[in-house]
């Protein structure tokens, strides 16, 4: 006993100053747990992202390696380039055409399919089925439907003696046509998410409102939409990001034409990089798109989240 108390100075010294190794113990444990996702993210997200940003400051050779450092010249070039500005404008229009219309349509279908009727399961399956069709397959189907002479739409117009429309060949119509097919493709997913959100709302709220005498639209406005707001917020964010990144249907339906009218940014990046081998300006476009989506999402969180009611 007394031996311990006889040398208090040594005792304090060892207890007082744990080394860096000791102190970082918890951090090291945490990193160990995070390691698998850090590795995955590094390989598939962080490395490509930083490589893109890096490349956007260079002119590249045929193999896509950085050749000449040009600073911000790629960005300057882009902002002066009518082709890129046209792409940006087309992308913006495309987002405006597809996101609000697509969400309203899915919401409408989800509200219909949320009614308790016999055989409603059939409609729920049908409405969500577009989720199970790949972009490529459905684009091919739409390609046929838009066909000027044998396509369904023009046949239909002919029935009523309306003038024919060159859906995918007319620069006035091409973007709208692609938007229509995109809305159709996205409806399944949005519908399913919104229907799930609707089914999560406690049935008793509606019963209580019915006893109070609230009509359908009153209930929709004061119960359904506020209670659905987190789901709506989620689906708006996802749809927005998806619309900015549209590629597959453009490639199959129009290849960016006619007259560049459907040359959305992601398609333009692809063309710049893999057709023109301009990896520098392609990377600069990618960074630009990244910033646009980032800003749009931040704005949405800023202004949208206030109106969202979380449970």
């Amino acid at each position, binding site marked *: 006993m007394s031996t311990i108390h006889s040398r208090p100075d040594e005792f304090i010294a060892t207890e007082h100053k744990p080394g860096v190794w000791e102190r970082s113990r918890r951090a090291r444990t945490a990193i160990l747990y995070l390691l698998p996702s850090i590795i995955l993210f590094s390989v598939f997200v962080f490395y490509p992202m930083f490589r893109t940003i890096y490349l956007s400051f260079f002119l590249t050779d045929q193999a896509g390696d950085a050749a000449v450092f040009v600073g911000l010249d790629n960005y300057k070039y882009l902002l002066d380039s009518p082709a890129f500005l046209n792409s940006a404008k087309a992308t913006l229009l495309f987002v405006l055409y597809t996101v609000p219309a697509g969400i309203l349509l899915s919401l409408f279908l989800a509200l219909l399919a949320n009614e308790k009727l016999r055989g409603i399961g059939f409609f729920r399956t049908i409405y969500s089925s577009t989720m199970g069709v790949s972009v490529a397959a459905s684009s091919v189907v739409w390609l046929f439907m838009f066909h000027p002479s044998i396509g369904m739409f023009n046949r239909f117009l002919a029935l009523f003696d309306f003038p024919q429309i060159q859906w995918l060949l007319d620069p006035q119509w091409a973007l709208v046509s692609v938007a229509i097919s995109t809305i159709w493709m996205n409806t399944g997913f949005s519908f399913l998410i919104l229907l799930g959100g609707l089914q999560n709302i*406690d049935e*008793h*709220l509606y*019963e*209580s*409102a*019915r*006893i*109070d*005498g*609230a009509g359908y639209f*009153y209930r929709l406005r*004061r*119960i359904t939409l*506020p*209670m659905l*707001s987190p789901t709506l917020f989620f689906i708006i964010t996802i749809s927005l990001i998806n619309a900015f990144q549209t590629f597959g249907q453009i490639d199959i339906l129009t290849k960016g034409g006619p007259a560049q009218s459907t040359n959305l940014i992601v398609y333009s990046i692809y063309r710049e990089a893999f057709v023109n081998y301009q990896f520098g300006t392609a990377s600069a476009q990618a960074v630009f798109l990244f910033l646009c989506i980032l800003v749009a999402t931040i704005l949405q969180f800023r202004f949208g989240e206030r109106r969202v*009611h979380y*449970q």
Partner: protein
Amino acid sequence: MKKVELIGISKSYDRQKDVISNIDVRIEPGEFFVLVGPSGCGKSTMLRMIAGLEEITGGTLKIGEQTANRLPPSRRDLSMVFQNYALYPHLSVEDNITFGLDVKKVPKAERKKRAQDTAEMLGLTDYMKRKPRELSGGQRQRVALARAIVSEAPICLMDEPLSNLDAKLRGHMRSEIRRIQRQLGITMIYVTHDQVEAMTMGDRIMILHEGKIQQIGSPIEIYNHPANPFVATFIGSPPMNLAQAEADPGTSSVILPGGEPIRLPEGAFEGIGKGPVTVGIRPEFLMPAQGTSEHPVFRAEVTNVEVLGHETVFSFLAGTEEWTAKWNGQWQIQPGDRIPIALDEESICLFDAKSGTLMKKPAARQLSVPAEGAAT
């Protein structure tokens, strides 16, 4: 204030099996009517039919003088409190309370005033700006209550409104709901599975079992004269003790399965023949044998003892059945003891062994205190 009348009401969800059959009852204006029964017996279904949330598949429902079978819920002049309260989670307490008034386009000033008055009545004034999730269970319950009261509907329906509260709060809210109902004079139809709530709150109780009425009456009437063994065991805690026995009018006694005969007073067997009967006796009429010579005494082995402070509840073997007795005071009894137990033979009831109908009522046991100063 309005009456509610059910005439031959039945309900079937699948068009084959009735979950509610042939309910005939008249709920008087201003009455506190309790619907009680075990879980799944159809209480909620019945209440929801009255509210108009569930279709009535047979019979006639009258609210006031009007046939209401096909009236939409909003035109039945009633309010309803749900078991899970059904508060709007995205609205403040005040908006929750005024929701129904807003629907009915009540002017804003009046809306505000009525919400304030109701909130005051229920002690909610400090919470008007809060969201439901920021309230305790008891406060949420009050908001649900406030929402029903503020509508000033003459009829109020409640579906197990207290079952999510802890025991102490439940006791408190019981008297509060009763007080408000008296104060406003509304007709209350109150559903519960808790017989204590039924006994303490109801002017009249209706006991439901598997969709059928077992008995309707005042709490004391039902406690004293249960119509059948189901009611006898459902109402009262611990439940009434039952045993299959043999009636022998010749010797004016019933013979318990153990072979033990109990002599009943003269005239007890009026209209009862020799044969099997169900004997029932409430736990409080199985008394300590000390000092009582007028009651028959038998000895039994104690199987379980609970001392509750003011009373002692223990079970013992009566022939083949396990019975419980409730004695006042703290008794030093151990499981395994054989103790003498006196049986108040006048308090025995006899049920028909097959149909279960009450054949012999127990003697009346009501006490009264002469009121002081009242008689002048």
